[in-house]
Protein backbone atom coordinates (compact mmCIF):
# COMPACT_ATOMS: atom_id res chain seq x y z
CA UNK A 1 0.00 0.00 0.00
CA UNK A 2 1.41 3.29 -1.04
CA UNK A 3 0.63 6.97 -1.26
CA UNK A 4 2.36 8.36 -4.31
CA UNK A 5 2.64 11.56 -6.28
CA UNK A 6 2.88 10.45 -9.85
CA UNK A 7 1.94 11.25 -13.44
CA UNK A 8 -0.72 10.28 -15.92
CA UNK A 9 0.37 8.08 -18.81
CA UNK A 10 -2.84 8.44 -20.80
CA UNK A 11 -6.43 9.57 -20.41
CA UNK A 12 -8.80 8.63 -23.20
CA UNK A 13 -12.51 8.82 -23.85
CA UNK A 14 -13.91 5.36 -24.57
CA UNK A 15 -17.53 6.34 -25.04
CA UNK A 16 -19.43 9.50 -24.21
CA UNK A 17 -18.65 10.43 -20.59
CA UNK A 18 -16.55 7.30 -19.99
CA UNK A 19 -12.78 7.59 -19.79
CA UNK A 20 -9.85 5.26 -19.24
CA UNK A 21 -6.84 6.64 -17.43
CA UNK A 22 -3.48 4.94 -17.09
CA UNK A 23 -1.45 6.17 -14.12
CA UNK A 24 2.20 5.43 -13.50
CA UNK A 25 2.00 3.52 -10.21
CA UNK A 26 4.98 1.35 -9.29
CA UNK A 27 4.43 -0.14 -5.86
CA UNK A 28 0.67 -0.07 -6.31
CA UNK A 29 0.35 -1.83 -9.64
CA UNK A 30 2.14 -4.99 -8.52
CA UNK A 31 0.11 -5.41 -5.33
CA UNK A 32 -3.35 -4.78 -6.74
CA UNK A 33 -5.93 -7.56 -6.47
CA UNK A 34 -9.20 -7.75 -8.41
CA UNK A 35 -11.85 -5.70 -6.62
CA UNK A 36 -9.45 -3.33 -4.91
CA UNK A 37 -9.51 0.40 -5.48
CA UNK A 38 -7.42 3.56 -5.27
CA UNK A 39 -8.10 7.02 -3.86
CA UNK A 40 -7.30 9.54 -6.57
CA UNK A 41 -6.75 13.29 -6.66
CA UNK A 42 -5.46 15.65 -9.31
CA UNK A 43 -2.67 17.42 -7.53
CA UNK A 44 -3.60 20.90 -8.68
CA UNK A 45 -7.11 20.90 -7.24
CA UNK A 46 -8.21 21.95 -3.79
CA UNK A 47 -11.80 21.87 -4.92
CA UNK A 48 -13.11 19.26 -4.65
CA UNK A 49 -11.30 18.75 -1.38
CA UNK A 50 -11.46 15.00 -0.93
CA UNK A 51 -9.89 12.25 -2.99
CA UNK A 52 -12.19 10.11 -5.08
CA UNK A 53 -12.34 6.30 -4.99
CA UNK A 54 -12.00 4.35 -8.23
CA UNK A 55 -11.89 0.62 -8.78
CA UNK A 56 -8.78 -0.76 -10.41
CA UNK A 57 -9.69 -1.69 -13.96
CA UNK A 58 -6.43 -3.36 -14.75
CA UNK A 59 -2.72 -3.19 -14.05
CA UNK A 60 0.18 -3.72 -16.38
CA UNK A 61 3.51 -2.55 -17.64
CA UNK A 62 4.34 -0.29 -20.55
CA UNK A 63 7.75 -0.77 -22.09
CA UNK A 64 10.13 2.11 -21.43
CA UNK A 65 10.43 4.64 -24.24
CA UNK A 66 14.00 3.54 -24.92
CA UNK A 67 14.86 6.48 -22.70
CA UNK A 68 16.86 4.36 -20.33
CA UNK A 69 14.10 4.62 -17.74
CA UNK A 70 12.60 1.48 -16.25
CA UNK A 71 9.40 -0.02 -17.61
CA UNK A 72 6.29 1.80 -16.56
CA UNK A 73 4.13 -0.12 -14.14
CA UNK A 74 0.68 1.34 -14.32
CA UNK A 75 -2.74 1.16 -12.76
CA UNK A 76 -5.64 1.80 -15.06
CA UNK A 77 -8.98 3.17 -13.97
CA UNK A 78 -12.16 3.55 -15.97
CA UNK A 79 -14.42 6.34 -14.86
CA UNK A 80 -17.68 7.98 -15.69
CA UNK A 81 -18.01 11.76 -15.52
CA UNK A 82 -20.76 12.41 -12.98
CA UNK A 83 -19.74 15.49 -11.00
CA UNK A 84 -17.06 18.01 -10.18
CA UNK A 85 -14.17 15.69 -9.50
CA UNK A 86 -14.64 13.55 -12.56
CA UNK A 87 -15.24 16.64 -14.71
CA UNK A 88 -11.77 17.84 -13.70
CA UNK A 89 -10.32 14.40 -14.37
CA UNK A 90 -11.58 14.38 -17.94
CA UNK A 91 -9.46 17.48 -18.66
CA UNK A 92 -6.21 15.87 -17.52
CA UNK A 93 -3.45 14.93 -19.94
CA UNK A 94 -0.43 12.71 -20.17
CA UNK A 95 2.24 14.06 -17.85
CA UNK A 96 -0.14 15.83 -15.46
CA UNK A 97 0.64 15.30 -11.79
CA UNK A 98 -1.76 13.28 -9.67
CA UNK A 99 -1.84 11.62 -6.27
CA UNK A 100 -2.83 8.02 -5.78
CA UNK A 101 -3.27 5.97 -2.63
CA UNK A 102 -3.65 2.23 -2.95
CA UNK A 103 -4.31 -0.55 -3.51
CA UNK A 104 -7.07 -0.31 -0.94
CA UNK A 105 -9.72 -2.53 0.51
CA UNK A 106 -10.55 -6.19 0.28
CA UNK A 107 -10.99 -7.54 -3.23
CA UNK A 108 -12.77 -10.59 -4.56
CA UNK A 109 -12.01 -14.02 -3.19
CA UNK A 110 -11.32 -16.19 -6.20
CA UNK A 111 -13.62 -19.20 -5.85
CA UNK A 112 -12.00 -20.79 -8.87
CA UNK A 113 -12.32 -24.35 -7.71
CA UNK A 114 -13.93 -25.66 -10.84
CA UNK A 115 -17.40 -24.25 -10.22
CA UNK A 116 -19.08 -22.17 -12.92
CA UNK A 117 -18.01 -18.54 -12.66
CA UNK A 118 -20.73 -15.99 -13.32
CA UNK A 119 -20.05 -12.27 -13.25
CA UNK A 120 -22.91 -9.79 -13.19
CA UNK A 121 -22.26 -6.15 -13.89
CA UNK A 122 -23.93 -2.97 -14.94
CA UNK A 123 -22.53 0.31 -16.18
CA UNK A 124 -19.45 1.41 -14.34
CA UNK A 125 -19.85 -1.70 -12.17
CA UNK A 126 -18.00 -3.61 -14.86
CA UNK A 127 -14.72 -2.01 -13.80
CA UNK A 128 -13.64 -4.38 -11.02
CA UNK A 129 -15.07 -7.37 -12.90
CA UNK A 130 -12.58 -6.92 -15.71
CA UNK A 131 -9.54 -7.53 -13.56
CA UNK A 132 -11.41 -10.35 -11.83
CA UNK A 133 -12.24 -11.94 -15.16
CA UNK A 134 -8.63 -11.75 -16.32
CA UNK A 135 -7.68 -13.80 -13.27
CA UNK A 136 -10.56 -16.26 -13.42
CA UNK A 137 -10.17 -17.10 -17.11
CA UNK A 138 -6.78 -18.61 -16.34
CA UNK A 139 -8.49 -21.64 -14.78
CA UNK A 140 -12.19 -21.42 -15.52
CA UNK A 141 -14.87 -20.77 -18.00
CA UNK A 142 -16.21 -17.31 -17.17
CA UNK A 143 -19.61 -15.93 -18.09
CA UNK A 144 -20.42 -12.23 -17.82
CA UNK A 145 -23.96 -10.94 -17.71
CA UNK A 146 -24.02 -7.26 -18.55
CA UNK A 147 -27.11 -5.21 -17.82
CA UNK A 148 -27.92 -1.63 -18.54
CA UNK A 149 -30.76 0.72 -19.17
CA UNK A 150 -29.81 1.22 -22.76
CA UNK A 151 -27.18 0.51 -25.40
CA UNK A 152 -24.97 3.33 -24.22
CA UNK A 153 -24.67 1.92 -20.70
CA UNK A 154 -23.07 -1.22 -22.01
CA UNK A 155 -19.32 -0.96 -22.09
CA UNK A 156 -16.29 -3.08 -22.72
CA UNK A 157 -18.04 -6.08 -24.26
CA UNK A 158 -15.23 -6.66 -26.76
CA UNK A 159 -12.58 -6.30 -24.08
CA UNK A 160 -14.21 -9.00 -22.00
CA UNK A 161 -14.67 -11.20 -25.03
CA UNK A 162 -11.04 -10.79 -25.91
CA UNK A 163 -10.24 -12.27 -22.50
CA UNK A 164 -12.27 -15.31 -23.50
CA UNK A 165 -15.28 -14.41 -21.40
CA UNK A 166 -18.68 -15.44 -22.69
CA UNK A 167 -20.83 -12.29 -22.51
CA UNK A 168 -24.61 -11.94 -22.36
CA UNK A 169 -25.98 -8.47 -22.80
CA UNK A 170 -29.42 -7.33 -21.78
CA UNK A 171 -30.88 -3.85 -21.74
CA UNK A 172 -34.10 -2.50 -20.27
CA UNK A 173 -35.09 -0.96 -23.58
CA UNK A 174 -33.80 -3.73 -25.79
CA UNK A 175 -31.44 -1.46 -27.72
CA UNK A 176 -28.66 -3.99 -27.23
CA UNK A 177 -28.87 -7.71 -26.53
CA UNK A 178 -31.95 -9.21 -24.97
CA UNK A 179 -34.64 -6.97 -23.55
CA UNK A 180 -35.18 -7.09 -19.81
CA UNK A 181 -33.26 -6.97 -16.57
CA UNK A 182 -29.93 -8.71 -16.25
CA UNK A 183 -31.42 -10.82 -13.46
CA UNK A 184 -33.64 -12.55 -15.98
CA UNK A 185 -30.49 -13.88 -17.66
CA UNK A 186 -29.00 -14.73 -14.29
CA UNK A 187 -32.02 -16.83 -13.37
CA UNK A 188 -31.68 -18.82 -16.59
CA UNK A 189 -27.97 -19.40 -16.04
CA UNK A 190 -28.47 -20.46 -12.44
CA UNK A 191 -31.15 -22.94 -13.45
CA UNK A 192 -28.58 -24.43 -15.78
CA UNK A 193 -25.60 -24.19 -13.39
CA UNK A 194 -27.00 -24.38 -9.89
CA UNK A 195 -23.51 -24.74 -8.39
CA UNK A 196 -22.18 -21.56 -9.96
CA UNK A 197 -20.55 -18.81 -7.91
CA UNK A 198 -21.63 -15.25 -8.62
CA UNK A 199 -19.64 -12.00 -8.43
CA UNK A 200 -21.61 -8.80 -8.87
CA UNK A 201 -20.96 -5.10 -9.07
CA UNK A 202 -23.34 -2.36 -10.10
CA UNK A 203 -26.11 -0.14 -8.83
CA UNK A 204 -27.69 -1.06 -5.50
CA UNK A 205 -31.07 -2.14 -6.90
CA UNK A 206 -29.29 -4.52 -9.28
CA UNK A 207 -27.24 -6.00 -6.44
CA UNK A 208 -30.42 -6.36 -4.41
CA UNK A 209 -32.12 -8.24 -7.22
CA UNK A 210 -29.10 -10.46 -7.70
CA UNK A 211 -29.11 -11.23 -3.99
CA UNK A 212 -32.81 -12.11 -4.06
CA UNK A 213 -32.09 -14.65 -6.77
CA UNK A 214 -28.94 -16.15 -5.28
CA UNK A 215 -30.06 -16.41 -1.69
CA UNK A 216 -32.92 -18.97 -2.03
CA UNK A 217 -30.72 -21.03 -4.35
CA UNK A 218 -27.83 -20.92 -1.84
CA UNK A 219 -25.54 -19.63 -4.52
CA UNK A 220 -22.28 -18.12 -3.22
CA UNK A 221 -22.41 -14.43 -3.99
CA UNK A 222 -19.84 -11.69 -3.61
CA UNK A 223 -20.82 -8.09 -4.22
CA UNK A 224 -18.73 -4.96 -4.58
CA UNK A 225 -20.31 -1.89 -2.96
CA UNK A 226 -19.89 1.84 -3.27
CA UNK A 227 -20.11 4.46 -0.53
CA UNK A 228 -19.10 8.03 0.08
CA UNK A 229 -15.53 7.89 1.28
CA UNK A 230 -13.28 10.44 2.91
CA UNK A 231 -10.16 8.48 3.88
CA UNK A 232 -10.34 5.12 2.12
CA UNK A 233 -8.31 3.42 4.86
CA UNK A 234 -10.74 2.82 7.72
CA UNK A 235 -9.85 5.93 9.71
CA UNK A 236 -12.89 8.17 9.33
CA UNK A 237 -15.73 5.65 9.61
CA UNK A 238 -17.63 7.61 7.00
CA UNK A 239 -18.22 4.77 4.54
CA UNK A 240 -19.88 2.15 6.68
CA UNK A 241 -22.59 -0.23 5.61
CA UNK A 242 -24.89 -2.30 7.80
CA UNK A 243 -23.60 -5.77 8.50
CA UNK A 244 -25.60 -8.93 9.04
CA UNK A 245 -27.33 -8.86 12.39
CA UNK A 246 -27.50 -5.07 12.51
CA UNK A 247 -30.31 -3.64 14.60
CA UNK A 248 -31.08 -0.34 16.22
CA UNK A 249 -30.22 -1.88 19.55
CA UNK A 250 -27.18 -3.84 18.40
CA UNK A 251 -25.82 -1.87 15.49
CA UNK A 252 -23.18 -3.55 13.40
CA UNK A 253 -21.38 -1.47 10.80
CA UNK A 254 -18.70 -2.54 8.35
CA UNK A 255 -16.26 -0.21 6.61
CA UNK A 256 -16.79 -0.32 2.87
CA UNK A 257 -13.26 0.92 2.32
CA UNK A 258 -11.47 -1.58 4.51
CA UNK A 259 -13.73 -4.54 5.21
CA UNK A 260 -15.04 -4.13 1.64
CA UNK A 261 -15.65 -2.93 -0.99
CA UNK A 262 -16.21 -6.63 -1.79
CA UNK A 263 -18.38 -8.47 0.70
CA UNK A 264 -19.73 -11.98 0.79
CA UNK A 265 -23.50 -11.55 0.58
CA UNK A 266 -24.03 -13.16 3.98
CA UNK A 267 -21.90 -10.50 5.69
CA UNK A 268 -24.42 -7.80 4.87
CA UNK A 269 -27.79 -6.80 6.16
CA UNK A 270 -29.83 -6.79 2.97
CA UNK A 271 -33.04 -5.61 4.55
CA UNK A 272 -31.38 -2.41 5.62
CA UNK A 273 -28.91 -2.05 2.82
CA UNK A 274 -31.62 -1.15 0.42
CA UNK A 275 -32.74 1.63 2.68
CA UNK A 276 -29.29 3.15 2.71
CA UNK A 277 -30.02 6.01 0.40
CA UNK A 278 -33.31 6.69 2.05
CA UNK A 279 -32.02 7.12 5.53
CA UNK A 280 -32.41 10.43 7.20
CA UNK A 281 -35.53 9.39 9.07
CA UNK A 282 -33.54 9.89 12.23
CA UNK A 283 -34.20 12.96 14.27
CA UNK A 284 -31.48 15.48 14.85
CA UNK A 285 -28.99 14.56 17.48
Amino acid at each position, binding site marked *: *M*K*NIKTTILSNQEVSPDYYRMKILAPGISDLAQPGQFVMF*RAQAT*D*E*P*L*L*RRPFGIFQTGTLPSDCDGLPDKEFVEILYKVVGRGTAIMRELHEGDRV*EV*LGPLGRGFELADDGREQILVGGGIGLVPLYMLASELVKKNKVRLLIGGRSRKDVLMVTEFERLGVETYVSTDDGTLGEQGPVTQVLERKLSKFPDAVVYACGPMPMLEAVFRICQPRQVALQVSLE*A*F*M*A*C*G*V*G*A*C*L*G*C*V*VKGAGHSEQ*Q*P*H*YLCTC*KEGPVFRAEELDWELLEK*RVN*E*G*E*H*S*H*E
Partner: protein
Amino acid sequence: MSEMLLSAGSTADGPDLAVEFAGLRLKNPVMPASGTFGYGEEYSPYMDLNRLGAIVTKGLSLRPKAGNPTPRIAETNGGMLNAIGLQNVGVDAFVEQKLPFLKEVQTPVIVNFFGNSLEEYGQAAQRLSQIDEIAAVELNISCPNVKRGGIVFGTDPGAAAEVVSLVRRHFNKPLIVKLTPNVTDITVIARAVEEAGADAISCINTLTGLAVDIRRRRPRLANGTGGLSGPALRPLAVRMVYQVVQAVSLPVIGVGGIMSAEDALEFLIAGAHAVQVGTANFVDPAAMINIVDGLKQFCQEEGVAGISELIGTLRC
Protein backbone atom coordinates in the same frame (compact mmCIF):
# COMPACT_ATOMS: atom_id res chain seq x y z
CA MET B 1 29.45 21.54 11.21
CA SER B 2 30.78 22.30 14.67
CA GLU B 3 28.51 22.28 17.69
CA MET B 4 29.63 25.80 18.40
CA LEU B 5 27.91 27.16 15.35
CA LEU B 6 24.50 25.99 16.45
CA SER B 7 22.29 28.53 18.09
CA ALA B 8 20.62 27.63 21.33
CA GLY B 9 17.84 25.10 21.04
CA SER B 10 18.73 23.93 17.57
CA THR B 11 20.41 20.62 16.95
CA ALA B 12 22.68 19.27 14.31
CA ASP B 13 19.49 18.40 12.42
CA GLY B 14 18.55 22.05 12.23
CA PRO B 15 15.89 23.93 14.17
CA ASP B 16 14.40 22.30 17.22
CA LEU B 17 10.72 21.46 16.83
CA ALA B 18 10.22 20.13 20.36
CA VAL B 19 7.48 21.67 22.45
CA GLU B 20 6.67 21.25 26.12
CA PHE B 21 3.36 22.02 27.77
CA ALA B 22 0.96 20.61 30.33
CA GLY B 23 3.62 18.16 31.41
CA LEU B 24 3.97 16.72 27.93
CA ARG B 25 7.19 16.83 25.98
CA LEU B 26 6.60 16.31 22.26
CA LYS B 27 9.29 15.99 19.60
CA ASN B 28 7.27 18.31 17.45
CA PRO B 29 3.93 20.10 17.75
CA VAL B 30 2.09 18.08 15.10
CA MET B 31 -0.53 15.44 15.90
CA PRO B 32 -3.68 14.09 14.28
CA ALA B 33 -7.09 15.42 15.27
CA SER B 34 -9.28 12.87 16.96
CA GLY B 35 -11.52 10.87 14.65
CA THR B 36 -9.50 11.48 11.54
CA PHE B 37 -6.70 9.04 12.22
CA GLY B 38 -8.52 6.00 13.54
CA TYR B 39 -6.42 4.35 16.22
CA GLY B 40 -3.12 5.10 14.50
CA GLU B 41 -2.78 1.75 12.78
CA GLU B 42 -4.92 2.69 9.81
CA TYR B 43 -2.38 5.13 8.41
CA SER B 44 0.73 3.26 9.48
CA PRO B 45 1.31 1.72 6.02
CA TYR B 46 1.72 5.22 4.61
CA MET B 47 3.86 7.00 7.14
CA ASP B 48 6.28 6.63 9.99
CA LEU B 49 4.18 7.26 13.09
CA ASN B 50 7.39 7.94 15.01
CA ARG B 51 7.68 11.24 13.21
CA LEU B 52 4.53 12.64 14.84
CA GLY B 53 4.52 14.75 17.98
CA ALA B 54 1.71 12.65 19.42
CA ILE B 55 -1.06 10.32 18.32
CA VAL B 56 -4.65 11.18 19.21
CA THR B 57 -7.19 8.37 19.02
CA LYS B 58 -10.74 8.35 17.74
CA GLY B 59 -13.06 9.43 20.55
CA LEU B 60 -13.64 6.54 22.95
CA SER B 61 -16.52 5.86 25.27
CA LEU B 62 -16.58 3.35 28.09
CA ARG B 63 -18.74 0.99 26.08
CA PRO B 64 -18.58 0.52 22.31
CA LYS B 65 -20.76 2.80 20.26
CA ALA B 66 -22.22 2.03 16.86
CA GLY B 67 -22.57 5.50 15.47
CA ASN B 68 -25.06 7.03 13.07
CA PRO B 69 -26.82 5.70 9.99
CA THR B 70 -25.40 6.53 6.58
CA PRO B 71 -24.64 8.68 4.64
CA ARG B 72 -22.32 10.02 7.30
CA ILE B 73 -20.19 12.38 5.26
CA ALA B 74 -20.75 15.04 2.63
CA GLU B 75 -18.31 17.32 0.93
CA THR B 76 -18.84 21.08 0.99
CA ASN B 77 -16.82 24.00 -0.35
CA GLY B 78 -13.42 23.90 1.27
CA GLY B 79 -14.64 21.42 3.84
CA MET B 80 -16.75 18.43 4.71
CA LEU B 81 -19.60 17.59 7.03
CA ASN B 82 -19.48 14.49 9.17
CA ALA B 83 -21.98 12.83 11.44
CA ILE B 84 -20.14 9.65 12.32
CA GLY B 85 -21.92 9.61 15.64
CA LEU B 86 -18.80 8.78 17.62
CA GLN B 87 -18.67 5.15 16.53
CA ASN B 88 -15.90 3.54 18.54
CA VAL B 89 -14.79 0.20 19.91
CA GLY B 90 -15.03 1.20 23.57
CA VAL B 91 -12.23 1.50 26.09
CA ASP B 92 -11.79 -2.23 26.74
CA ALA B 93 -11.49 -3.22 23.10
CA PHE B 94 -9.17 -0.29 22.60
CA VAL B 95 -6.86 -1.59 25.31
CA GLU B 96 -6.97 -5.13 23.99
CA GLN B 97 -6.92 -4.61 20.24
CA LYS B 98 -5.48 -1.20 19.50
CA LEU B 99 -3.10 -0.30 22.29
CA PRO B 100 -0.59 -3.13 21.69
CA PHE B 101 0.16 -1.67 18.28
CA LEU B 102 0.49 1.86 19.66
CA LYS B 103 2.88 0.71 22.38
CA GLU B 104 5.44 -0.12 19.71
CA VAL B 105 5.41 3.45 18.40
CA GLN B 106 7.81 5.94 20.00
CA THR B 107 5.16 8.63 20.15
CA PRO B 108 2.97 9.64 23.10
CA VAL B 109 -0.62 8.47 22.85
CA ILE B 110 -3.43 10.86 23.72
CA VAL B 111 -6.83 9.27 24.14
CA ASN B 112 -9.83 11.35 23.15
CA PHE B 113 -12.97 10.35 25.05
CA PHE B 114 -16.53 11.33 25.82
CA GLY B 115 -19.60 10.19 27.67
CA ASN B 116 -23.30 10.62 27.21
CA SER B 117 -23.79 11.60 30.82
CA LEU B 118 -21.74 12.93 33.70
CA GLU B 119 -21.61 9.44 35.09
CA GLU B 120 -20.25 7.97 31.89
CA TYR B 121 -17.58 10.66 31.67
CA GLY B 122 -16.49 9.80 35.19
CA GLN B 123 -16.42 6.06 34.59
CA ALA B 124 -14.45 6.43 31.38
CA ALA B 125 -11.93 8.72 33.10
CA GLN B 126 -11.48 6.26 35.91
CA ARG B 127 -10.93 3.38 33.52
CA LEU B 128 -8.47 5.40 31.40
CA SER B 129 -6.50 6.45 34.47
CA GLN B 130 -5.53 2.80 34.94
CA ILE B 131 -3.83 2.57 31.55
CA ASP B 132 -0.13 3.32 31.84
CA GLU B 133 0.56 3.71 28.14
CA ILE B 134 -1.65 6.76 27.83
CA ALA B 135 0.30 10.02 27.96
CA ALA B 136 -2.74 12.24 28.31
CA VAL B 137 -6.45 12.35 27.64
CA GLU B 138 -8.42 14.77 25.56
CA LEU B 139 -11.90 15.29 26.89
CA ASN B 140 -14.44 15.88 24.15
CA ILE B 141 -17.18 18.08 25.55
CA SER B 142 -17.90 19.44 22.14
CA CYS B 143 -19.14 16.77 19.80
CA PRO B 144 -22.15 18.24 18.05
CA ASN B 145 -23.59 14.93 16.93
CA VAL B 146 -24.78 13.08 19.96
CA LYS B 147 -28.09 14.01 21.40
CA ARG B 148 -27.39 13.57 25.04
CA GLY B 149 -23.65 13.93 24.74
CA GLY B 150 -21.13 16.64 24.12
CA ILE B 151 -23.13 19.64 23.09
CA VAL B 152 -24.82 20.06 26.45
CA PHE B 153 -21.53 20.17 28.30
CA GLY B 154 -19.52 22.20 25.82
CA THR B 155 -21.82 25.16 25.32
CA ASP B 156 -22.62 25.90 28.94
CA PRO B 157 -19.84 27.09 31.27
CA GLY B 158 -21.42 25.49 34.34
CA ALA B 159 -21.85 22.09 32.74
CA ALA B 160 -18.38 22.28 31.21
CA ALA B 161 -16.84 23.01 34.61
CA GLU B 162 -18.81 20.20 36.20
CA VAL B 163 -17.64 17.52 33.80
CA VAL B 164 -14.05 18.75 33.87
CA SER B 165 -13.95 18.74 37.71
CA LEU B 166 -15.35 15.24 37.76
CA VAL B 167 -12.86 13.89 35.25
CA ARG B 168 -10.06 15.75 37.01
CA ARG B 169 -10.88 13.85 40.18
CA HIS B 170 -10.47 10.53 38.42
CA PHE B 171 -7.47 11.30 36.29
CA ASN B 172 -4.13 12.74 37.30
CA LYS B 173 -2.20 12.71 34.07
CA PRO B 174 -2.44 15.69 31.70
CA LEU B 175 -6.06 16.54 30.97
CA ILE B 176 -6.76 18.34 27.72
CA VAL B 177 -10.27 19.68 27.16
CA LYS B 178 -11.55 20.12 23.64
CA LEU B 179 -13.91 23.02 23.04
CA THR B 180 -16.70 23.51 20.56
CA PRO B 181 -16.85 26.60 18.32
CA ASN B 182 -20.65 26.64 18.45
CA VAL B 183 -20.75 29.29 21.16
CA THR B 184 -21.16 33.03 21.48
CA ASP B 185 -18.02 33.55 23.54
CA ILE B 186 -15.49 30.77 23.70
CA THR B 187 -13.46 32.53 26.38
CA VAL B 188 -16.27 32.01 28.88
CA ILE B 189 -16.06 28.26 28.41
CA ALA B 190 -12.28 28.35 28.37
CA ARG B 191 -12.15 30.11 31.71
CA ALA B 192 -14.68 27.73 33.23
CA VAL B 193 -12.63 24.78 32.09
CA GLU B 194 -9.42 26.31 33.39
CA GLU B 195 -10.89 26.89 36.82
CA ALA B 196 -12.23 23.36 36.90
CA GLY B 197 -8.74 21.98 36.59
CA ALA B 198 -7.93 21.38 32.92
CA ASP B 199 -4.23 21.28 31.98
CA ALA B 200 -4.66 22.32 28.36
CA ILE B 201 -7.32 23.23 25.83
CA SER B 202 -7.87 21.91 22.30
CA CYS B 203 -9.59 24.42 20.12
CA ILE B 204 -11.72 23.75 18.06
CA ASN B 205 -14.06 20.90 17.26
CA THR B 206 -16.38 21.03 14.24
CA LEU B 207 -18.99 23.69 13.53
CA THR B 208 -22.54 22.43 13.10
CA GLY B 209 -23.74 22.62 9.52
CA LEU B 210 -26.45 21.34 7.21
CA ALA B 211 -26.25 20.44 3.54
CA VAL B 212 -29.35 19.78 1.47
CA ASP B 213 -29.89 17.36 -1.37
CA ILE B 214 -32.08 19.65 -3.44
CA ARG B 215 -33.60 16.93 -5.65
CA ARG B 216 -34.62 14.68 -2.78
CA ARG B 217 -35.37 17.62 -0.42
CA ARG B 218 -33.50 15.75 2.28
CA PRO B 219 -30.39 16.52 4.27
CA ARG B 220 -27.35 15.02 2.60
CA LEU B 221 -26.48 13.33 5.89
CA ALA B 222 -28.77 10.74 7.42
CA ASN B 223 -28.36 12.49 10.74
CA GLY B 224 -29.58 15.81 9.34
CA THR B 225 -26.85 18.11 10.56
CA GLY B 226 -23.14 17.33 10.78
CA GLY B 227 -19.86 18.86 11.87
CA LEU B 228 -18.03 21.08 9.42
CA SER B 229 -14.28 20.54 9.22
CA GLY B 230 -11.54 21.41 6.77
CA PRO B 231 -9.84 24.58 5.52
CA ALA B 232 -13.15 26.46 5.25
CA LEU B 233 -13.11 26.57 9.04
CA ARG B 234 -9.58 27.81 9.59
CA PRO B 235 -10.16 31.56 10.07
CA LEU B 236 -12.73 30.77 12.75
CA ALA B 237 -10.37 28.34 14.48
CA VAL B 238 -7.42 30.74 14.43
CA ARG B 239 -9.61 33.50 15.86
CA MET B 240 -10.85 31.28 18.68
CA VAL B 241 -7.37 30.01 19.50
CA TYR B 242 -6.13 33.58 19.72
CA GLN B 243 -9.04 34.55 21.97
CA VAL B 244 -8.53 31.59 24.27
CA VAL B 245 -4.79 32.17 24.49
CA GLN B 246 -5.51 35.74 25.59
CA ALA B 247 -8.17 34.68 28.07
CA VAL B 248 -6.57 31.84 30.00
CA SER B 249 -3.09 30.85 31.04
CA LEU B 250 -3.45 27.25 29.90
CA PRO B 251 -1.57 25.99 26.86
CA VAL B 252 -3.74 25.61 23.77
CA ILE B 253 -3.68 23.06 20.96
CA GLY B 254 -4.88 24.61 17.72
CA VAL B 255 -7.09 22.60 15.40
CA GLY B 256 -9.31 23.41 12.44
CA GLY B 257 -8.53 23.41 8.75
CA ILE B 258 -4.80 22.91 8.88
CA MET B 259 -3.60 21.62 5.51
CA SER B 260 0.00 22.86 5.35
CA ALA B 261 2.90 24.09 7.47
CA GLU B 262 1.82 27.65 6.71
CA ASP B 263 -1.61 26.91 8.15
CA ALA B 264 -0.07 25.31 11.24
CA LEU B 265 2.11 28.38 11.72
CA GLU B 266 -0.95 30.62 11.80
CA PHE B 267 -2.05 28.76 14.92
CA LEU B 268 1.38 28.64 16.54
CA ILE B 269 1.96 32.33 15.95
CA ALA B 270 -1.51 33.03 17.34
CA GLY B 271 -0.36 31.29 20.51
CA ALA B 272 -1.01 27.55 20.18
CA HIS B 273 1.61 25.24 21.68
CA ALA B 274 0.76 22.44 19.28
CA VAL B 275 -1.56 21.71 16.39
CA GLN B 276 -3.86 18.92 15.32
CA VAL B 277 -4.44 17.95 11.73
CA GLY B 278 -7.78 16.40 10.81
CA THR B 279 -9.43 16.51 7.42
CA ALA B 280 -6.06 17.07 5.74
CA ASN B 281 -5.16 13.45 6.51
CA PHE B 282 -7.95 12.34 4.20
CA VAL B 283 -6.86 14.70 1.46
CA ASP B 284 -3.26 13.56 1.76
CA PRO B 285 -2.00 10.92 4.18
CA ALA B 286 1.40 12.61 3.95
CA ALA B 287 -0.02 15.91 5.23
CA MET B 288 1.32 15.71 8.79
CA ILE B 289 4.80 14.65 7.70
CA ASN B 290 4.87 17.50 5.17
CA ILE B 291 3.83 19.87 7.94
CA VAL B 292 6.62 18.70 10.24
CA ASP B 293 9.14 19.18 7.44
CA GLY B 294 7.63 22.53 6.52
CA LEU B 295 7.85 23.83 10.09
CA LYS B 296 11.52 22.97 10.18
CA GLN B 297 12.09 24.71 6.90
CA PHE B 298 10.21 27.82 8.01
CA CYS B 299 12.34 28.06 11.18
CA GLN B 300 15.43 27.80 9.04
CA GLU B 301 14.26 30.48 6.63
CA GLU B 302 13.29 32.81 9.45
CA GLY B 303 16.45 32.12 11.37
CA VAL B 304 14.80 30.93 14.56
CA ALA B 305 16.48 28.18 16.53
CA GLY B 306 13.33 26.49 17.75
CA ILE B 307 9.66 26.44 16.97
CA SER B 308 8.80 27.53 20.50
CA GLU B 309 10.31 30.92 19.74
CA LEU B 310 7.46 31.50 17.31
CA ILE B 311 4.62 30.57 19.65
CA GLY B 312 2.41 33.53 20.51
CA THR B 313 4.38 36.06 18.50
CA LEU B 314 1.30 37.54 16.83
CA ARG B 315 1.12 41.31 17.19
CA CYS B 316 -2.46 42.46 16.92
